[in-house]
């Protein structure tokens, strides 16, 4: 269950393999204080979902891009 005070950030990406996702997930988790992050690799938009209480999505986008992948926040 997600607490109402937490924010959910949803991103469209081109992360397309479990290996890529594993590496990006590790980078996100070791850089930011987040509640959870997941990706839907079956979806056409490879939607990444990050739950955190205090985070600027620009930093997440920048980190994913540094890993060589596209990332756009879906607002």
């Amino acid at each position: 269950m997600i607490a109402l005070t937490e924010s959910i950030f949803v991103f469209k990406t081109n992360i397309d393999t479990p290996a890529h996702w594993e590496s990006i997930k590790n980078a996100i988790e070791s850089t930011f204080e987040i509640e959870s992050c997941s990706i839907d690799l079956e979806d056409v938009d490879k939607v990444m979902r990050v739950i955190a209480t205090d985070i600027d999505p620009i930093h997440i986008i920048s980190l994913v891009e540094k890993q060589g992948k596209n990332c756009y926040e879906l607002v």
Partner: protein
Amino acid sequence: MRVRDQAKEILVKEKAIELLVKDGFDGFSMNKLARMCNVSVATLYIYYRDKDDMIKTIGTELARNFNHYVLKDFLPTMSFKDGLKIQWKNRAFYMLNFPNDMACYELLRHSPHAETIVSEGMIDFRNTMKSFMEKAIKNRELVQLSIETFWSIAFGSLHVLLRFYQEGKSMGCKPFHLSDVDINEAFEMVIKALTPVHYNINPS
């Protein structure tokens, strides 16, 4: 940042059930669902991690809800006949009033997520039914059978009659209207089949 909206969450759930019933487990996609709800795909991800998470969550909720209705006014301490009668009444009520939920629940119970749905959504129901059946067997109100045989006899005829009613026709497309007489007749036959034969009548 995405914000949760309870009304939208309910809409998503309703439409997901509708889409699963219409297109089946394999034909279900987040894109189709987003179009049906008139929301962006991203909105769906506020509520669920992915398609699998959505199906497991909805399936578990449907199981809990179904069991809540089936066990309404039911106590495992009741006599076998009274307890089964209440379950027939409750099952008929649920199937006739929530046909989409029932169809979706049946579909998900036979999907790859069945184990999660059944184990998380049916614990109370299984324990209650186990206690009810054990007591009935001990009191010689119920014959000892495998659970699968018991279930098919106890509820099979009810489900078939309700399906005929929902389709408006029975075998060979014969028009069918369900009456209390049909239900009671089937119920008495079920009780007769499941009740042990007592050899306590004095032949002389």
